[in-house]
C-alpha cells in the first residue's frame, strides 16, 4: 500500500515534470532537485524527503507528453515515486521502462491526494474508497527490457550474446 502524494490533471507535459531550463543537468544524482520545479510547494516537499518511498503520483490522460527528455523519468526515479495514470505518452512510457521507473496504466482510475492505493498484478485497488480499477498491461514488446532490469543491462546482454 502506498499513498497518493499528488493528483494531476490530463496532459501533464515533461516541461511540467522537468522544466526545459534545467536540461543541461543530466546526472541522475542531480536531476531529482528539479522535479516539478514550478510546483513550488510540492518540489520543496520532495526535496525535504517528506514522502515515504514508493509513494504515488496519479496522472490523468496522456501523462508525460511533449519532450523526449529522459530527465523527466530520472528525476522521479530519484525520489522513489511511482506513477499511476489513465494513459501515458509514448516516449515517457518507454523512458520509464528503460530506466526502471515504476509506471502503471489504469484507464478508469479514480483517486485523490491522500488515498491509499494497492497495486496488484492486474488492478489498482483504492483502499480509501474501496474501489478497484483494471490495469492495462505495459506493451509486451518491452517485457524483455523490464525483465532485464532496464535497457542498459538488456543492451549489455545483447552485446555479450553477439560476441559469443
Amino acid at each position, binding site marked *: 500500500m502506498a499513498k497518493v502524494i499528488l493528483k494531476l490533471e490530463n*496532459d501533464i*507535459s515533461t*516541461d*511540467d515534470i522537468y*522544466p*526545459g*531550463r534545467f*536540461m*543541461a*543537468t*543530466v*546526472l541522475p544524482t542531480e536531476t531529482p532537485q528539479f522535479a516539478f520545479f*514550478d510546483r513550488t510547494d510540492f518540489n520543496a516537499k520532495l526535496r525535504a524527503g517528506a514522502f515515504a518511498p514508493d509513494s504515488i503520483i496519479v496522472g490523468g*490522460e*496522456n501523462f508525460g*507528453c*511533449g*519532450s*523526449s*527528455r*529522459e*530527465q523527466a*523519468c530520472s528525476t522521479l526515479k530519484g525520489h522513489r515515486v511511482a506513477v499511476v495514470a489513465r*494513459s501515458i*505518452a*509514448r*516516449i515517457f512510457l*518507454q*523512458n520509464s521502462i*528503460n*530506466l526502471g521507473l515504476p509506471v502503471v496504466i489504469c484507464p478508469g482510475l479514480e483517486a485523490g491526494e491522500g488515498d491509499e492505493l494497492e497495486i496488484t498484478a492486474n488492478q489498482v485497488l483504492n483502499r480509501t474508497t474501496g474501489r478497484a480499477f483494471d490495469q492495462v498491461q505495459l*506493451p*509486451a*514488446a*518491452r517485457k*524483455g*527490457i523490464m525483465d532485464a532490469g*532496464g*535497457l*542498459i543491462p*538488456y*543492451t*549489455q546482454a*545483447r*552485446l*555479450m550474446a553477439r*560476441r559469443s
Partner: protein
Amino acid sequence: MTVVEKILARASGLPSVRAGDVVEPRVDLAMSHENAALVINQFQEVFEGTGLDAKVWDPSKIAIIFDHRVPAESPKTATNQKKIREFVAAHGITKFHDVRGDVGGICHQILPEFGYVRPGSVVVGTDSHTTSHGALGAFSFGVGATEMASAWALGIAVNVEAPATIRVEVKGAFPPMVGPKDLILYLIGQLTAQGANFKVLEFHGETIRNMSTSGRLAICNMSVEAGATSGIVPGDEETIRYLREEAGVVGGIDCVGPDADAQYVRTVEVDVSALVPQIACPHAVDNVKPIDQVLGTRVHQIVIGSCTNGRLDDLADAAALLRGKKVAQGTRMLVFPASSRIFGQALDKGYIHDLMKAGAVVMNSGCGPCLGVHEGALGDGETALSTTNRNFKGRMGNPTGFVYLCSPVVAAASALTGVITDPRKA
C-alpha cells in the same frame, strides 16, 4: 502494408510487418543534439564491466547537431558541448554540426538540408520533434537518451512495436494567408493531444502533393503534438526535387508508398479550401481556436522561427508583411532562422534587412526561446505569439507567461499591431 509497415519490414529483414508486430529495425540515422551528453553517459554505462571496447556501431550513421543552447548560455552547457566534441573526435562521427555560422542550425532543418534523411529509411532522434523527417518519407521517431545509447551500441532499435496508422486525406487549395501550419494546428485540435498516441499519421491527398517540403516538415514536426509516433508523407516527385536540388543528393532515391490494401485504424479527411488561420491557445497545443475567437489579444513578444516555421518561405512571408513598416511599440519581435544556410539565403534575398528595419531582432539559428532555456524568456504574466510548436505552461521560460501558437503570417501581422491580428485583413 502502410508506409511505416513497409519500411519496418525492409529494415528488419522480414517479408511483411503488421501493426502490433514486434520488430528490431536497423537504424539508418541516429540523431542527437546537446542531450548527446546524457547519451554518452548511458553509452559508457552499457559497456561497463563487459570487457568490450565502447565503440559506436557505425560512426557514419550518427548525427549530432548543437542547437538547443547555442552559443552556450552557461558553463554547464559549454562543458557538455566540450565533452560531446571530444566524443565526436574519438569516435570519428562525421555528421557533426558545431556552433557555426555556415553549417550550423536546428537539427530538424540540418538533417533534411544536408541530405542525411532518405525516403524509406529508419531515423531515431533524442528529440520528440524527430517526427519531422517523415516529411521526406522516412519512419522517424523520438527516443530517450538510454534508447539512443542502445542504438549507438547495437545499430538497431530494440523491441519496436509496429505502430498502427491513421490515414489523413487532405484536399483543396489553401486560401490566401492560410497554410500548412494552420492545417496541422486544426488537425491537432480535432485529434487532441493524445489522439494519435502510439500511432502514425500518414498524409495523403492533392494538398499534400502540392505542398513544399518546407510545409511537409512543419506538419510532420507537429504530428507529435497529437501524440503520434511519427508523421509521414510518402516520398514523391517533390521529395526527389528537394533532395536533389536543395540537399545535393546524388544516387538512388527510393520512394515508398502504401499498398492499395493497407490497413488503417482510421481515416481523417480535411478540406482546406475553407480553412481559416488557427491559433493554439495556452497552455495546450490542442487548445486550438479559429483566429476570430482570439483577435485583439495583447502580445508582448512575437517569435518567428524554430524547427516548425523558421524556413526560408516562412521568413519571406514575414518579411513581405513587415517590409517598410514597424513592429508596434511595446511589442518585441524575435526571429531565429532554422539554419545558418537559411539565414544566409534570407540575407541575400533582403528578408533579414526588411525584418530588422521593421524592428525585429534577428538571432543566430537555434532553438532559442522555444524551450525557454536560452534567449527570449517572458516576463511575469506576459504573452507571446509564436510560430514554434509548444505552448505548455513555462515553455518560454516563465511559468506565469502565456504562449499562443500560429503561422508566420499571423505572427507578422500581429507584430505590426501588438495584438493578435488576422493577416487576411492586414
